[in-house]
C-alpha cells in the first residue's frame, strides 16, 4: 500500500517536475531522451511504454488502450506534439516506430492468444481433429492410432481415451502449443516424451504440456513476457513467438523437473510454482531472453543459459 502511495505521489508530482526541469535543461522531451540514451531492447521499450502511460497528453496515453493503432500516424503525431525535428533527430522516428510496434503488438498478441484459448476443442471440427492426429503422428511415427477414441492416447500423456476433455480452460491454445512443439522441435518433443515415461519420476507429457500452456498464458497476461519479446522481436510479436516461448518453457521445465531430488508426480504443482518463480525472477532482468538449449537443438551440446 505504501508503495502505491509513493508511486502516486511520484507520478503525480515529482516525476512531472523532474521531467519539466530536464526538458528545460536539455531541450528534449522524455521520449526523445529515452531513444537517445537507452540502447535497443526491452529496457528502452519499457521506458517508452511507461512514459506514454504517465503522459498527461490524452493522445499519447490513449495509444496504450486503443486497438488497431496506426503506428505511422501515431509516430507523426508524437513528433508534431513534442516538436521533434526529423532533421536534427533522424533516429527518433524509426526508433519510436519500432517501440510502438512492440508495445501495441504485445497487446494484440494477448487478445489473439486469449481468443484462441477460448475456442473449445470440438471433435466435429475437422481442423481440430487434424491437429490432434498430427500431434500423434509427430510423437509416435511408428505406431498407428487404432481408433479416434482409444486408450493409446495415454501413451502420449493424455488422461483417458479421448484427449478432447483434457484441453479444458486452455482450449485450442493448448493443442496448438503441443503441435507446434512436436512439429518444429520434433526430436526434442520425442526426447521429452520418452523421458516423461520414467516409471518413478515420470510425468504425463500431454497433461504437463497443457499445464505449461497455462503458465505461458499467465506470463503473457501479467506482462512478464515483455522482457523476452521486446528483446527478441524487433517489431510486432506474433502468435508464433508465443509458441516459441511455450517450447522453451516446456523444454526447460522438463530439465528442471528431473533436476529435483526424489520426485514423483504428486509434487507437480509445487515444482511448477518453483519453476515459475525462477522464470519470473529471470525476466525481471531487462536484458533477459528465454533462449536455451532448445534454440540450437537438443543434440547440440552448447551450454544453455542456466535458469
Amino acid at each position: 500500500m505504501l508503495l502505491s502511495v509513493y508511486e502516486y505521489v511520484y507520478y503525480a508530482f515529482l516525476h512531472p517536475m523532474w521531467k519539466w526541469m530536464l526538458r528545460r535543461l536539455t531541450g528534449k522531451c522524455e521520449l526523445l531522451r529515452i531513444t537517445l540514451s537507452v540502447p535497443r531492447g526491452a529496457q528502452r521499450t519499457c521506458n517508452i511504454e511507461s512514459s506514454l502511460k504517465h503522459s498527461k497528453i490524452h493522445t499519447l496515453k490513449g495509444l496504450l488502450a486503443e486497438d488497431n493503432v496506426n503506428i505511422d500516424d501515431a509516430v507523426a503525431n508524437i513528433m508534431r506534439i513534442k516538436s521533434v525535428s526529423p532533421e536534427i533527430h533522424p533516429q527518433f522516428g524509426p526508433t519510436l516506430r519500432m517501440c510502438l510496434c512492440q508495445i501495441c503488438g504485445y497487446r494484440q498478441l494477448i487478445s489473439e492468444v486469449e481468443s484462441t484459448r477460448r475456442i473449445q476443442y470440438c471433435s466435429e471440427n475437422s481442423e481440430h481433429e487434424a491437429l490432434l492426429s498430427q500431434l500423434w503422428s509427430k510423437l509416435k511415427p511408428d505406431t498407428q492410432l487404432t481408433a479416434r477414441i482409444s486408450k493409446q492416447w495415454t501413451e502420449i500423456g493424455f488422461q483417458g481415451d479421448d484427449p478432447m476433455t483434457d484441453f479444458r480452460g486452455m482450449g485450442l491454445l493448448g493443442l496448438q502449443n503441443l503441435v507446434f512443439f512436436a512439429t518444429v522441435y520434433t526430436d526434442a518433443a520425442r526426447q521429452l516424451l520418452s523421458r516423461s515415461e520414467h516409471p518413478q519420476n515420470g510425468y504425463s507429457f500431454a497433461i504437463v504440456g497443457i499445464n505449461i500452456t497455462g503458465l505461458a498464458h499467465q506470463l503473457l497476461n501479467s506482462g512478464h513476457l515483455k522482457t523476452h519479446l521486446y528483446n527478441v522481436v524487433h517489431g510486432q510479436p506474433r502468435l508464433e513467438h508465443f509458441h516459441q516461448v511455450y517450447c522453451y518453457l516446456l523444454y526447460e521445465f522438463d530439465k528442471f523437473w528431473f533436476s529435483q531430488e526424489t520426485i514423483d508426480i504428486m509434487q507437480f504443482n509445487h515444482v511448477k510454482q518453483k519453476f515459475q518463480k525462477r522464470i519470473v525472477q529471470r525476466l525481471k532482468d531487462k536484458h533477459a531472453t528465454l533462449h536455451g538449449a532448445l534454440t540450437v537443438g537438443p543434440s547440440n551440446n552448447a551450454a544453455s543459459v542456466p535458469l
Partner: protein
Amino acid sequence: MGLLALLRKLKSSPDRELRILLLGLDNAGKTTLLKQMASEDISHITPTQGFNIKSVQSSGFKLNVWDIGGQRKIRPYWRNYFENTDVLIYVIDSADRKRFEETGIELGDLLDEEKLMGVPVLVYANKQDLFNAAPASEIAEGLNLHGIRGRQWQIQACSAASGEGVKDGMEWVVKNIPKGKK
C-alpha cells in the same frame, strides 16, 4: 492487507479445521468444484497433475480441501491422502454415462478402505447443466448408495460450472462432521 481485514482475520481465527478429501475420475470436475467453493475464477482450469489444496471458510469452519488428480495413473496415490480425513467428497460427471461403472468401482473401493471407515461421504452428481446429465436419484440407484452402511452419506446434484447446488453440499458437510470435531 487493510487494517479491517487484519482485524477480521485475528478475530475469526482459530477456526475449527477440517480435512476434506475431494476424489473422483478425471474430468469429473473436482478442480472446478474446488475453485467454485473458494469463489475463484474457473475459466483457466487445466488437468490436475498431482493435487491442489485450498482452504475454504464455511459456517465458521476452515475446510482444508485436497483435490487429487483423477487420472488412472495417479489413482494409486489417493491412499496417501486418506489419513485423518473428516469428510470424503466424491465427484461424478453425471453426463458421462459410459464411465458410470468405472466410477462406481472406484467409489466402492474407497468405501472399503480401512482408513476411511466411518468417514461421511458426499457424492456430487456434477454437470447437471448438461442436457444429457443423469439425475442424482438415478446415479444413487446405479451406485447402490442406499446400501452404504456405517457412515453418513448424501448425494447432491450440482453444477460446478454455474455453482448451483455446491453450497447445499457444503452445508451438508459441516452438518455431518464426525463427533468430537464439532
